[in-house]
């Protein structure tokens, strides 16, 4: 057992995947000698060479488009997009090519591509460096979208994503890169890729969260104890598809749900969860499903980001509201 940061856990996961399968390639901007701007790929090029850890030209569509070709040739590319806001030049290749290839080839082609995107705010960055565009991918048939909330999941989920024969957009909570946890690499992962995890059992309401909001929600649940509230916290882990069975089971028990994400309010993952809970758990619900999220504005200048992002107090405010029905 070693204590490891989330960023280093992804590094170790990438290393393990590359050792296991020579077809795994890592490609992106500044990922070689520098090890990526967050050092997630540190040391990989030194150990696996420039043919497998590829510093690419500075063009995101080119990264994904050439990854498509490499996948067609039998490789399993792991592409790093340097920051969330920089993925959009690659959006066409992701939406029109990566996502649809298996379908349009009637199953003859597979696209085992992982697109890693450090995402979310809270690090005081300049514009385009703090965004949460997961809905824009989760809405697209053919893609799968996941996000890890802690180092142990980070280690295993990146490997499971690489093993997946479907294309996966892997959102890494960049402000949690330095969070630490005990990792036992010899213990197999407790869950398959597309399962949610109940992190804290509770009875009064369910907090549904993922990525950077997992820690926030766990802290909120602890704080709520002082108010005499026993909150359940579910780390969704997978956004497309949602693990609806786990979500439904939790909400049928607690009868109240608050979805928490940094992404804007409207048409966000919370909207879809609210719709599905209304359809499937209507008679169990004591209150409407509420959402505590970023606002429907562009991500603000960073001096205001603490007001924009859901934090412990806003989550508890949401809990107050959902308990008020």
């Amino acid at each position, binding site marked *: 057992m070693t204590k490891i940061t989330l960023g280093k856990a992804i590094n170790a996961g990438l290393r393990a995947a590359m050792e296991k399968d020579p077809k795994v390639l890592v490609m992106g901007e500044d990922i070689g000698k520098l090890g990526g701007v967050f050092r997630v790929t540190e040391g990989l090029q030194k150990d696996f060479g420039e043919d497998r850890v590829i510093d690419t030209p500075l063009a995101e569509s080119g990264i994904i488009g*050439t990854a498509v070709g*490499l996948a*067609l040739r039998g490789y399993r590319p792991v592409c790093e997009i340097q920051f969330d806001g920089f993925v959009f030049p690659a959006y066409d290749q992701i939406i029109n*090519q990566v996502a649809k290839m298996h379908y349009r*080839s009637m*199953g003859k082609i597979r696209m085992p591509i992982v697109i890693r995107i450090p995402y979310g705010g809270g690090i005081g960055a300049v514009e385009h460096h703090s965004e949460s565009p997961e809905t824009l991918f989760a809405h697209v048939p053919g893609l799968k979208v996941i996000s890890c909330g802690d180092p142990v999941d980070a280690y295993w989920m990146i490997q499971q994503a690489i093993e997946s*024969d479907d294309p996966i957009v892997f959102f890494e909570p960049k402000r949690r890169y330095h969070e630490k946890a005990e990792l036992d690499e010899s213990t197999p992962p407790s869950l398959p890729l597309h399962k949610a995890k109940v992190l804290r059992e509770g009875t009064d309401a369910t907090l549904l969260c993922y990525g950077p909001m997992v820690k926030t929600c766990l802290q909120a649940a602890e704080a709520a104890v002082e108010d005499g509230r026993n909150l359940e916290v579910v780390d969704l882990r997978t956004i497309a598809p949602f693990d609806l069975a786990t979500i439904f089971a939790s909400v049928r028990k607690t009868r109240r749900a608050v979805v928490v994400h940094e992404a804007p309010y409207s048409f966000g993952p919370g909207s879809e969860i609210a719709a599905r809970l209304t359809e499937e758990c209507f008679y169990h619900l004591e209150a409407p499903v509420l959402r505590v999220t970023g606002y429907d504005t562009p991500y603000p200048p960073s001096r205001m980001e603490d007001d924009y992002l859901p934090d412990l107090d806003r989550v508890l405010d949401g809990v107050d509201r959902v308990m008020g029905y």
Partner: protein
Amino acid sequence: MSESVPGPAPEVFAPHEAPVSPPQASEEVEFVQLLTPEGERVEHPDYKFDLDDETIKGFYRDMVLVRRIDTEATALQRQGELGLWASLLGQEAAQIGSGRALNDKDMVFPTYREHGVAFCQGVNPLNLLGLFRGVDQGAWDPKENNFHLYTIVIGAQTLHATGYAMGQQRDHAVGDADNGEATIAYFGDGASSQGDVNEAFIWASVFNAPVVFFCQNNQWAISEPIDRQTRIPLYQRAAGFGFPGVRVDGNDVLATYAVTQQALKRAREGSGPTLIEAYTYRMGAHTTSDDPTKYRLNEDLEHWKLKDPIERVHAYLSRHAAVDHDFFDEIEAEGDKIAAELRAGCLALPDPVLTDFFQNVYVEETPQLAEQRDQFVAYAASFEGEG
């Protein structure tokens, strides 16, 4: 200009003097030509076509057959059997010449107009119709035919080709001019403006990928003429990216073969990418939904008809290869037979069922999608027994 090309670009590819304005229709265009529009063989200092007349007869047959297939598909669209068709009329030499230069192991990334290259790669012509009839999105097996699915988003496939070529490098399949592998990416003059194409040039250049960029400059991107895409001849763009570019008479099957073969050889031996600009003309509409009379002159079309890619080979074979009428008649008959089979096959294509189209969204289906499929099946079943 040639001094600005880094690396060991052979002298034969040195770009010509760049004109300050785009060439006009009446202007003589400089390109590699080995067979004149009148059907006379001509020499070129850097490119030779040294195969026999039997090969040329084969090219002639290929071009006539793909034109016949194309004509039949256009007719099928006019009769309501296809939703759309993108005709290759006029571009037969560019496609057959380049397609016949490919080896078994080379990989092709086409646009949606490469019916001639598909023919060379052994794709059943009927499989080309499914996309346009709306029964599938490409029914051939890209691996079996070494011919990727048609790509409709303009230029996107050039990056796929470059990535595939980088895979060939990583598989150590490059470095041998005879047994090595190469990739060829087809695209048009319009696509040359796309970011993806320019990114593909950059990737191919800096990674020295074994890819041939085959641009069919057919002068028109739907209604926009070539001078809306470029102020210099397209092949000259290669110099800025650091690899050779060459312009070939795209209506000359011997020249497109020779030029493509040399570029493929360069790629296979590990010398990197080449841009080929096949200078040709889209004799028909962009697609069957287009009306070229709104934006271009009939004189242009008449001018290009004199440069027809098939007529010049017909003239050559009649005059210099002792080919008699029977040869031409047999090919016409073969074309009619293929067309009749194509038509019958098209009409017999089974209508697709939506139920089947849930299953290939993912390799590992999601529970949500399985649920939606079941809902659709149940909903569709509720109409059984009605009218």
